[in-house]
């Protein structure tokens, strides 16, 4: 297996590759002190990662275009057609935020706000189980000689660290987002808030569009404050609608033009032929690019396709 495809953050991968370790076998033949020889390097990696604080998506290509993963202190909006994998990505992130600091993760917990009822515990368990297996495998490799460093997490532990809110109306949605300030100050280990989806309750039968715009922008502001105050990642999912633009009907994310300015980063998940792709539509710091990913029994993973990896726009 190549280092480039390991489910660890992109900057760690980059460092390993630049130091010349491109396959797992090359790593496994080393002792930790060899790796630590750039003693600085190994420690720096972990240290810098903590400062940069990105949550991996478990897909190397997706992490790459995101600059290493989902960023804390920012709101990332992710939209796509039904069935493309938004909820899958949400569950994957809720699990990945819990990857221990020793393995390059944040060791945090997740808040999952479900407005549509799409969160299926059976699937969360599948993803948690696969994640634990990946962590054990990676840990074994890193700590080859110090086997006493075990990964103590079990899939049920991962499920226990996901705080699940089921929201059934737009009022409850406003309420939970306001309440999160108090909740997170009491649960400071929460490092990601996922809203799946932000659209649903605002799309059904909302007569007063001016009110809708006001409520949505108020909500976007609160989420941004939450992200900055508590140094966590906020990921919100949006649905898709059709819009008449440039002479034809096209797909666009829902909730209108004023909403489209509200989020810092905007990622669109779409079908490109037979593959799922993600496109960075808007970001102050990331370059516009698209990358393939896939949804497997284990969760979000690299695409198995042989096509050229990342396409820069």
């Amino acid at each position, binding site marked *: 297996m190549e280092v480039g495809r390991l489910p660890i953050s992109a900057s760690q991968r980059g460092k390993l590759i630049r130091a010349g370790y491109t396959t797992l076998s090359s790593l496994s033949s080393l002792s930790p002190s060899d790796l630590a020889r750039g003693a600085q390097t190994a420690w720096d990696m972990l240290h810098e990662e903590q400062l940069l604080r990105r949550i991996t998506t478990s897909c190397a290509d997706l992490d790459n275009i995101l600059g290493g993963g989902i960023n804390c202190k920012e709101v990332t909006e992710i939209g796509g057609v*039904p*069935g493309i994998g938004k909820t899958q990505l949400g569950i994957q992130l809720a699990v990945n935020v819990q990857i221990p600091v020793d393995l390059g993760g944040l060791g945090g917990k997740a808040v999952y706000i479900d407005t549509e009822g799409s969160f299926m515990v059976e699937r969360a368990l599948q993803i948690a189980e696969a994640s634990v297996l990946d962590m054990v495998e990676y840990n074994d490799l890193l700590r080859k000689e110090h086997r006493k460093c075990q990964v103590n997490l079990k899939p049920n532990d991962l499920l226990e660290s996901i705080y699940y809110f089921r929201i*059934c109306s737009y*009022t409850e949605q406003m309420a939970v*987002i306001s309440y999160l300030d108090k909740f997170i100050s009491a649960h400071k280990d929460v490092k990601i808030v996922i809203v799946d989806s932000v659209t649903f309750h605002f799309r059904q039968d909302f007569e007063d569009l001016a009110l809708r715009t*006001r409520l949505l922008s108020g909500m976007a502001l609160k989420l941004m404050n939450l992200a900055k105050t508590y140094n966590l990642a906020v990921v919100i999912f949006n649905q898709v609608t059709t819009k008449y633009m440039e002479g034809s009907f*096209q797909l666009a994310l829902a909730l209108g033009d004023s909403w489209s300015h509200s989020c810092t980063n905007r990622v669109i998940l779409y079908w490109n032929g037979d593959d799922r792709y993600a496109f960075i539509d808007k970001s102050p710091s990331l370059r516009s690019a698209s990358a393939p990913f896939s949804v497997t029994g284990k969760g979000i993973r690299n695409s198995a396709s042989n096509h050229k990896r990342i396409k820069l726009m």
Partner: protein
Amino acid sequence: MADKLIKEMGLPKSMANVFAARNITTAQEALALTDFELMLLLDVGMAEVSSALARISEIACPPYQTALALMEQRIQKEGHGGHLPTGLKGLDEALCGGIPFGVLTELVGPAGIGKTQFCMKLSLLASLPTAYGGLNGRVIYIDVESKFSSRRMIEIGVQSFPDIFNMKGMAQEMAGRILVLRPTSLSKFTESLQQIQVALRQQQVKLVVIDSMTAVISGDYGQGASRQHLLGWHVSFIKSLAEFSRIPIVVTNQVRSQTRDEGCQYSFQVRSTEDPVGYDSHLVAALGINWAHSVTIRLVLEAKSGQRFIKLAKSPMSPPLAFPFNITAAGISLLDDYGRELKGAEINKIHSHGHSDVINFDGKGCSDQWGKPT
């Protein structure tokens, strides 16, 4: 939660009075205004407004659960971990047990493919005692196009579970658990939904079937945005019914040809491709993309080269599998329990090649898998 009264929230008396004076009585009304608007309306300082809103939000917010607690609750309290087994082994495995409780499952496909057959079988399964894999409960079947046939359903029962149905009085009892409603207009349909809400609280209703959702409004109104807008309230309501009573709700949807009005690419895709995507005519699910977002599980029933398939087009917990099936005297049966995994967007396409069967509900038109009439 949205209707919680402000006066019962334990706010400081002065604040509670101010809200009442401005006629803001429920959480919904208070949260519909921004902090600033409330400050102006109530004529109090920002600090008081913020703390009042924080309190109101905390009360109006539903309680949380850890995902672990959610899972344990489902396994302990609900039959089959919160699923209605369909009796189709491959499908049940892919769905981690069967049709899930608490969410909408959609069956979409061309006319005569077997959606109603499947619904009737599910209704029967839900009414069966738990010892036979059922939910031992009542079923409410909203039959918009008058396709439900009790005779066919009893036939399915007798063929699938002969030992129960040949017992005296059993057929009558099982059939007696299924209530069929036939609303003739959108407003009558709305009434039916509200009746269902009442029934859910009082009786042991374990499954609601709506056959078909498309027919509900196709008679009254035109296509496009107006249709989607009409469904808006209904979709939310039906989803909340499923959620609160933790029952499966199965909805059927029809198909139509894709029109030129459909977008299928984003603006960044349009820019980068040189040749415009040709609109080859194929079938799509009716009711639009907004509806497609609202259902949790979408099962596509289609026919390719004369063979019928049931596909898991949208499911948060299953791979994109397609199972070949036939309609038999015992309902639907899969020809292969392993299914074929489809790549990419193929799982969403709906085909109707070589499909011309129309099922006759008097039993005369039904044939077994070898084509012999039964």
